[in-house]
């Protein structure tokens, strides 16, 4: 897993390597001091990295490893002890540059006495957005994060998940070019997590840069192009996820269930080249997140009312790149002319064991038509019914009409 830190960045280049550098960090060190100026903690130690336009860049690491400190240094909330940070080729404290940044902190630092709409309007004012635009964006964002129904409730009364949602909405009010998300899925339910990841992908598709700080590895793995892994304030590994996770000395083949004889023939063929104990056969399962999402989708169809967050809303139109305030006919026309799948991102691919995609592609090209990409197996009807019943019991409701 670990990558040699002496490896030059050029060796780790991704398709974004030619794009504009959005954030550049060189020799960054942050030492916290006590009242008397004595060093208290070295939170970040000689860190170097670059984030380029359109990248989803992950900061990974355990608690106290320096991720949030790095984020705060990039945002100008902390001053580096040593080193240089450039954001859009300016100092992090350059005020006009901040108009291009959206930030979601690790905790809800919103004003507890404002309601959701007031919160968005307030932050919109700080970006000097016109009144109409503030109202439009607030409407779309509230819809997107599922808080439209509770828009008049004070943020202080929200659950942690709801506070994360409104926090995310405020981070996007200015349609930022650089979005910095600190633990964006912390406190969110699986649906919320899924939607946040969809959103990150949608932003990346529009050429936005996303810096994601998290210790939830699955989240990072799902959306990040490149990551740095912190420990003790230092970067321990850095590079493209695909390269870091690849197991170049093994491959995986997924196929529909085969007759026993066929399987034995295939195995016999394989055993000619490799030892028996290195070959593994199993039945692929879909991941829990996808299964859960499907169950909830069915439950939603069955019972439309909820006192909490309304999920499943699309990403706000202006964040998908649709112009604001255009006639509906224009939008309709655009929908028909967009490439399939660009309007709403598809479901997250099921995290499968690491596959060397490059190798797989080359194998497919060499030996005939490519096999279809492995798709998560649909949940069985019985399984869904069971889950529906469990959910209904948990919520204290009778199963909906669709539940059998």
């Amino acid at each position, binding site marked *: 897993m670990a990558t040699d830190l002496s490896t030059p960045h050029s060796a780790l280049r991704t398709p974004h390597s030619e794009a504009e550098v959005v954030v550049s960090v060189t020799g960054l060190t942050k030492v916290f001091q006590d009242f008397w100026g004595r060093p208290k*903690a070295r*939170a970040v130690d000689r860190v170097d990295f670059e984030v380029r336009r359109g990248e989803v860049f992950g900061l990974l690491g355990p608690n106290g490893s320096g991720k*949030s400190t790095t984020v705060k240094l990039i945002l100008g*909330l902390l001053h580096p002890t040593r080193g240089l940070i450039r954001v859009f080729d300016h100092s992090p404290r350059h005020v*006009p540059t*901040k108009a291009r940044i959206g930030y979601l*902190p690790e905790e809800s630092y919103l004003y507890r*006495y404002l309601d959701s709409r007031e919160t968005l309007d*307030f932050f919109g004012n700080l970006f000097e957005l016109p009144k109409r635009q503030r109202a439009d964006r607030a409407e779309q964002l509230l819809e997107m994060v599922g808080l439209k129904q509770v828009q008049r409730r004070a943020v202080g009364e929200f659950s942690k998940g709801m506070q994360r949602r409104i926090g995310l909405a405020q981070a996007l009010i200015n349609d930022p070019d650089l979005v910095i998300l600190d633990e964006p899925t912390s406190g969110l339910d699986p649906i919320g997590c899924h939607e946040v990841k969809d959103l990150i992908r949608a932003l990346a598709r529009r050429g936005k840069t996303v810096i994601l700080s998290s210790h939830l590895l699955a989240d990072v793995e799902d959306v990040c192009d490149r990551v740095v892994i912190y420990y003790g304030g230092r970067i321990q590994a850095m590079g493209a996820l695909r390269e870091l996770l690849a197991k170049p000395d093994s491959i995986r083949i997924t196929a529909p269930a085969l007759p026993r004889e066929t399987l034995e023939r295939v195995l016999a063929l394989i055993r000619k080249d490799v030892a028996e104990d290195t070959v593994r056969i199993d039945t692929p399962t879909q991941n829990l997140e996808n299964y859960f999402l499907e169950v909830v989708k069915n439950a939603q169809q069955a019972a439309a009312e909820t006192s909490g967050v309304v999920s499943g809303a699309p990403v706000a139109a202006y964040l998908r790149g649709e112009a604001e305030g255009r006639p509906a006919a224009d939008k309709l026309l655009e929908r028909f002319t967009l490439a399939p799948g660009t309007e709403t991102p598809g479901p997250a691919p099921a995290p499968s064991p690491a596959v060397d995609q490059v190798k797989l592609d080359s194998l497919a090209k060499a030996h005939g038509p490519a096999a279809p990409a492995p798709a998560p197996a649909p949940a069985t009807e019985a399984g869904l019914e069971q889950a529906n019943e469990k959910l209904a019991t948990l919520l204290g409701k009778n199963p909906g009409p669709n539940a059998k």
Partner: protein
Amino acid sequence: MQRLYAIAWLTWKAAFRFRLFLVIAGLLLVSVVGLPLLIKDDGTARGFTQILLTYTLTAITALLGFSTLWLACGTLARDIEECQIQMLAVKPIARWQIWLGKWLGIVSLDAVLLALSAGCVYGLLQWRAHRLPPDQQQALRNEVLVARGSAREKNFDKEIDARADQLLRERLEKNPLETRQANLGEVRRQIRESVKAAYELVRPGSPSRPWRINLGSARLHLRGQPLSLRVKFNAAEGSASGTYGGILAFGEPPKTKTAQSPVLSMAPDTFHEFIIPPDLFDADGVLTITFGNPNETALLFPLEDGVEVLYPEGGFGPSFVRALGIILCWMALLAALGLASASLLSFPVAAFFSLGLLAMTLSSGTMANAVEEGTIAGYNPEKNTRGSSPVDLVVIPTFRAALKVIRLAMDFSPVDSLSTGRRVTWTQLGLALSQIVVLMAGSVGLLGIFALSRRELAGAQAVQ
């Protein structure tokens, strides 16, 4: 501007959502309505009105002052402690705009609260005035609910200093050894005091020196109008009755007509007001006043505020509004002080520091005494001896400098002016704006903005 407005609006929202506005407004209204029920007056409509004005406006100023300081410390320090300011600092708003927006929010909040409570005071005064008999109403409108100009004798400082220097020189010529033996500064101070006393003294059984008061250009519109004389004196010895007799004479024949009061009975150390008949000043607007002292003790009319002529100059309403303007200037300074403290310190420390500074300002009389006596070790008036302390070398110049700064703000007395029917002028308001808001609040604000701009807004506690 949109950003400043947004921050100011946020301060308003916080004040309403935390019910701070309602609580302060309630307290102000209770003090305005409740105080008149508790205060004791001299039984006259004039006395009651004066006391009402003084007490209510002082209570409003004090209450609003403390809440301003508290709110200013809280709004910024809590934002920093609870990390909300991080959400502002990452937006395209400069830190000076955050600071200024909060200041504007607090000052506008103060303006509304002040207008609300002072409006009640004004309404109460007018309502009570309307219920008085016509003659008392007239007296009230002539003496309190009016805006009067003020004229005093010319300043005698130059003459007093020149005479004191001359006497000191003569004394040193007679006794050259004194140069080495005595503290010359102290000797000069004593000589000056005695020269000044000669200007203020009215010997027993003698008339005073003529007090000549120039009414200036006001004379042009004062023909045919009665004026008011406001006097205060100290007595060298006590009186069994507690009062002293006196006769006032006005005019200087043959240049003007003359008039004389009957024998008056007056208490020392307090202000007395008398009507001066019309047209007793000369063509240049100089009014001559003499005081006959029939008592067996000397009376001293202080040069600073012993004799003052007041004349009608305008309506009470505009003067009242200008006085409120000066009070608002004080609030603006307190808001700046609170915000500046919170830019650097945590909420409890900032509040303690600001309130400490305020207490120090309010006790500037002690500092003034120490500066006047030249020591903090105390003065024994019976033995006429002064203590001395090694810290005087540092403390006295510090006090002197602090007093200069404090006086920039405290030299205005809008409440006193209103309660004595004096006019609060546009010049005074302009001076208050420039001295208190622009100079003092501006300087404090620059310090606060500098501190906030340099400060790291995230701490080590949030390290991950």
